[in-house]
Structure formats: C-alpha cells, structure tokens
C-alpha cells in the first residue's frame, strides 16, 4: 500500500538517521578534498618527478570507478592485515577519487588566470606574497566556485555507494527498508526527496558564495 502514513511515520526517522551519515561523509570528503586536491594540484604544477606522480594519480583515480576503489580499500586492506571500518574505507575511497577531480578544478582555475596578470602585478612592483594574495588567488577562487559546487553535489550523490560496503548511510537504510517491507514507493520517494534537498542545499550555498564574491569584486 503506497502512502501508508503509519509506515511513513516510522520510515522518516530511520531515513534521517541514515541521512546524517550521508551528510557527515559528504562534508568530510569535501573538506578533505579541498586540501588534498590543492596539494595534488600544486605538486602537479612543479617540474620533475613529483609532478609526474601527481599527474599519474589524477589520471588513475579519475579513470577507475569509485566502487572498485572502495572494494580495494575495504576488502583489500583488511586482507592485507590492516582492516578499516566501512565508514573509514568509504571516506578514504571518496577522498581518493574526488581528490583527483578537485585537483583538476584547481589546475583549471590556476591556468585560467593569464600570465599577463602576473606580469601586470610584477610591473606594479608587487612581491610574490602580495601578487598571490591580492591579484592571483581572488581570481582563481572566483573561477573555481561554480565547478566546486558541482563537485560538492556530485560527492553528495557519490556517498550513496558506501552502501555497498555495509555502511548504514541513507541508501543502505533504504535498501534494508525496501527489502523488509512492501512499501517500495514510499521509501523511494522519501530517499529521492531527501537527496534532492541535500543537493539543493549544496547548490544554493554555492550560488550564495558566488554572489558574495561577485559583490566583493
């Protein structure tokens, strides 16, 4: 029976409990990737073997499925003797994969600022520190906000894959409820709506941030 109110009353708290795990994973992943992606992008912009490693890392993680990366971390590591919890494995795999995407966003942002801007800054007698903090970084930030917002949305959706390694996120909760009841429609609608709310929040936050930057400039 779809739209069974008694069922929904029990379903919603369970989904929200799962959603907490989803949100936690998404926020942690995004925060870690902001730092890790920057490190990779900077390593990539150097000359020599470090840049080669960073480049290879980006290509490898971007061209293999997240799910396989999760399996390697979750099953592979435990076989090798240092097992991680499902949550930790999921988080690690999410960071490994999305770090590659975030690094590319940083790289695109850095490349988009033309060398003329550097020359103009130097012609004004700016020191390196001033050049970067006043001229370059504000422009890079303005450029990377929209793709970073998209990445945050994509991370939020990606977290659903941790259900495959037994983490009780919203997706897993939904699977359990679907299998233990006949109210597939209710569960589906509930999960879909909560994901839509979460991704919309990320999208709106990105837009607000973008608008603030536009005013600042």
């Amino acid at each position, binding site marked *: 029976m779809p739209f069974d109110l008694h069922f929904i009353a029990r379903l919603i708290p369970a989904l929200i409990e799962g959603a907490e795990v989803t949100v936690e994973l998404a926020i942690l992943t995004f925060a870690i990737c902001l730092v890790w992606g920057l490190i990779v992008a900077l390593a990539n912009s150097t000359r020599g073997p470090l840049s080669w490693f960073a480049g290879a890392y980006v290509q490898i993680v971007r061209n293999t499925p997240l799910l*396989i990366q999760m399996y390697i971390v979750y*099953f592979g590591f435990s076989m090798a003797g240092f097992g991680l919890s499902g949550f930790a494995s999921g988080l690690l795999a999410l960071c490994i994969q999305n770090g590659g995407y975030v690094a590319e966003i940083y790289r695109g942002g850095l490349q988009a600022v033309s060398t003329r801007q550097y020359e103009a800054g130097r012609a004004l007698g700016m020191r390196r520190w001033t050049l970067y903090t006043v001229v370059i970084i504000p422009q890079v930030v303005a450029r990377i906000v929209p793709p970073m917002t998209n990445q945050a949305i994509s991370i939020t959706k990606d977290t659903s894959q941790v259900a495959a390694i037994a983490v009780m996120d919203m997706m897993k909760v939904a699977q359990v409820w679907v299998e233990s009841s006949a109210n597939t429609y209710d569960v*589906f609608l509930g999960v879909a709506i909560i994901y839509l709310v979460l991704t919309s929040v990320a999208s709106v936050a990105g837009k607000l941030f973008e608008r603030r930057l536009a005013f600042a400039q």
Partner: protein
Amino acid sequence: MKEFAPLLHGYWYLLRGAGMTLLMAGAAILPATACGILLAMAQVFGNRFARSAVVGYLFIVRGIPLLVLLTFTYYLLPLTGIDLPPFWGVVLVMALYYAAFMSEVFRAGILSLPQGQWDAARSLGMTRRLMLQIVIFPQALRLASPPFVSLCANLVKATSLVSIVGLWELTMASREIVERTLAPFQIFLGAAAIYFCICYTLALYGRYLESRVLHGH
C-alpha cells in the same frame, strides 16, 4: 609475482565481464545521446513550457544518485508489471540519467556559438531548419565532442553500479572471483586496470578532439 596468481586464473572471466560492461555502456550511450540532443534543443529552442519541463527534469536527475534510481528500478519494475529484462531496465535508467548530462554538454555547444553565425545564416535566407542543419549543429557537435567523450568515460565507470543490483558485468565478475580466490586486492586491482584502459583511452581521445577544436582545422 606469486601473489598475482589468482589474477592469472581469473583474467579470462574478467575480460568477459569487461565485454559485458562495454556492451551495457554502448547500449546506454546511443539513446542517452539522442535524448540529450532532444533535451538540449527543447531547452534552447522550445517554448516556455518545454523549457521548464527540461529544467525540472535536469533538477531531479542532477539531484538524485544514479544508484538510488537503479536500485528502485530493480525493485519497482516487477511491481509495475512491465516485463523488461533487468539488462534493458538498467540500460534505460542509465540512458535517461546520462541524457540529462549530455543535454548540458550539447546546450553549451549550441550557446557558445557567436551570435554572428546565426546572423550570417539568417541573412543568407536560410530557414531555421536549414540553419541548424548546416551551420549550427556541425559546429556545436564539434565543440561538444570533448566533454561528450569524457561523459562516455563516466558512463563506463557508472556501469559498475549495476553490480549492486545484481547484474553481471566487470565489477560483478571480479566480486565472484574474489569470493572464490579470497584475493580481493589483486582481483580488484586487475578490474581497476581494465576500467582504466577503457576510460583512459576515451580520455586521450577526448584530449585529442579538444586540441583539434582549439586549433581549428
């Protein structure tokens, strides 16, 4: 080298899985492209109703994880009484899902053409249909081809999700071998390597197309 013996035993099975992955991806890419082009055209040239319908569709698809849609198609299909084999069910869902992202790519291609191209075509007495056919589409498709190819690589990676709902392809094949050999690290690495070969080839092709677009003929 001895540690990789399980991989040597299972490689033929993995390659068969990869064949299934490619088949699934190929079957999804064709309708996804067709729908993507239709959605893009509806959004660029359609009336208000068509435009808001497309925007609504994109909002929903961009906000819900593919895994949620796949899982529930798997559970819902039998309930709706539609007699669709699971393979075609997931191909349908993936096609409709990726159509949304493809439409963004094609729309960007159409909109990035300078106004002058439309002006010139109109001033030569071309009807809208002819203008689209010989001036706008050839250029828009060329502009859209690099991001289109990387979307195809994404789609190949996303096929790994169908293993979660029980369909057999590369990821499922690797899980089966892992259950027999208890060598998750080696087998999943092998699967990752196959995915990498497929997706990296596509990525290189996309980069080649991009350089052609940037440097003209």
